[in-house]
């Protein structure tokens, strides 16, 4: 059902955990669909110095969360905001159609975390 890459990241997810003093936090999802993701970011000089996740959900939800943290790490905030759901799915070698909507939320969580950072840090963050 899943690609080898999805299974590999499900078995050994990268960047799993919380950042206690995160600069931004983004949570998306809905327990009705059975997927809930939280992304934590640490920002330094407009770059994502660290990105971590915690996820309640299926194999696809855990693998997409792991993938988005890898894709975002080291990027500028502007670059990270351009990461899409499709990018995440492509990097995983594709996802089953039923998983594309409910479980592929990690890019959204990342964007929410960046917005949260910008809100907290005001104008200074937009420079």
């Amino acid at each position, binding site marked *: 059902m899943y690609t080898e890459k999805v299974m590999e990241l499900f078995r050994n997810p990268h960047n799993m955990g919380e950042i206690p003093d995160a600069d931004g936090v983004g949570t998306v999802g809905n327990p*009705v669909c*059975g*997927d809930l993701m939280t992304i934590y970011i640490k920002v330094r000089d407009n770059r994502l110095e660290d990105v971590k996740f915690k*996820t*309640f*959900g299926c*194999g696809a939800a855990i693998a997409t969360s792991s993938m988005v943290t890898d894709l975002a790490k080291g990027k500028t905030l502007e670059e990270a905001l351009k990461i899409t759901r499709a990018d995440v799915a492509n990097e995983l070698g594709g996802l089953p159609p039923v998983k594309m909507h409910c479980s592929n939320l990690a890019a959204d969580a990342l964007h929410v975390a960046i917005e949260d950072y910008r809100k907290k840090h005001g104008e200074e963050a937009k420079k």
Partner: protein
Amino acid sequence: MAIEKCVYMDHTAGKPVDARVIEAMLPYMKSAYGNPASLHSFGEEPRKALDEARAQVATLINAERKETIVFTSGATESNNMAIKGVAYRNKDRGTHIVTSSIEHMSVINPCKFLKTRGFEATFLPVDNYGIVSLDALGKALTEKTILASIMYANGEIGTIQPIEEISKIVHKKNIYFHVDVTAANGQIPIDVRKEGIDLLTLSSNDMYGPKGIGAIYMKDGTRLEPLLHGGGQERGLRSGTENIAGIVGFGKAAELAKAEMKTESQRLVKMRDRLIKGLLDSIPYSFLNGHPTRRLPDNAAVRFSFIEGESMLLSLDMLGVGASSGSACTAKTLEPSHVLMAIGLKHEEAHGSLLFTLGRQNTEEEVDYVVSIMPAIVKRLRMISPLTPKELKL
């Protein structure tokens, strides 16, 4: 790391066919291939086999005579036949059907279909164990009610219904009582006469017979419109050339189930309770789904807080164990199982459910293996989950 274990605990989804059943079926594919309707001698042996299988199935449920059994393609067809067949044939008497909110989709969807064709359907609530409310049943029956359809037991949570009591309430009025016995097939002795059942759905694979064959029991005098019109086989109630090999296999499976049910069910209950206790004792925030004692012998339905079912299934699969979940993510719909919602679970609780269904090949050793690997699976997924409370020491 090579996984050598291969532990199958998803018997509600599908069972192997018993070797003795396969043996009994083979002649009807190789040599006795004639059509039972033929006058010539090639039809003789299949005709006898059809009669014998019908008697074997009738004996399993203590039917009054073998002619009350009509063979179908399986439980879905039998359920459709019972509900749509009774509705169409009896609409001069009434247009209302009563069923429960935890039936199989092959009962729920025909009822919903009939609602688009001028009928009414009531879906009775169940309590937290999944037992149908007798009070609500009594109140739901009206002058217009023609059929009540309640399953014998639910395969997803294991709960067994008080069938005799339901029958008494239904039969106080002039209403047909249909029972889908699929999940309890071959595990619990069924007696249609003692329990007061007018129509009964049976499936073959659930008792280690082949797939694609089932039956409906119809008490003498039951008025029902057939779904399939054609050559008039099965007393005109189910046209189509008989699937003789399948029917013979079903008959043999019914005979074996009757002979072996008592010892096998005792063995299953012992393993089931060992599995449930093992999991609940070793994993915090774990709970039983369904009733603790009014429960199918093969059914261990449990749930674990803060984590999701599919990720548990994948983890089990990597260690060689096949189980099932009530999770939306394994199905085509996004909603969790209607059964788990009907017993009052929250969405996230329903999503954290796992279903182990035991069978003839399972051993206590396999049960112990599952109990030994589950705590680490749950712990790992809880470490990943944002719902896990901080105070829960992992």
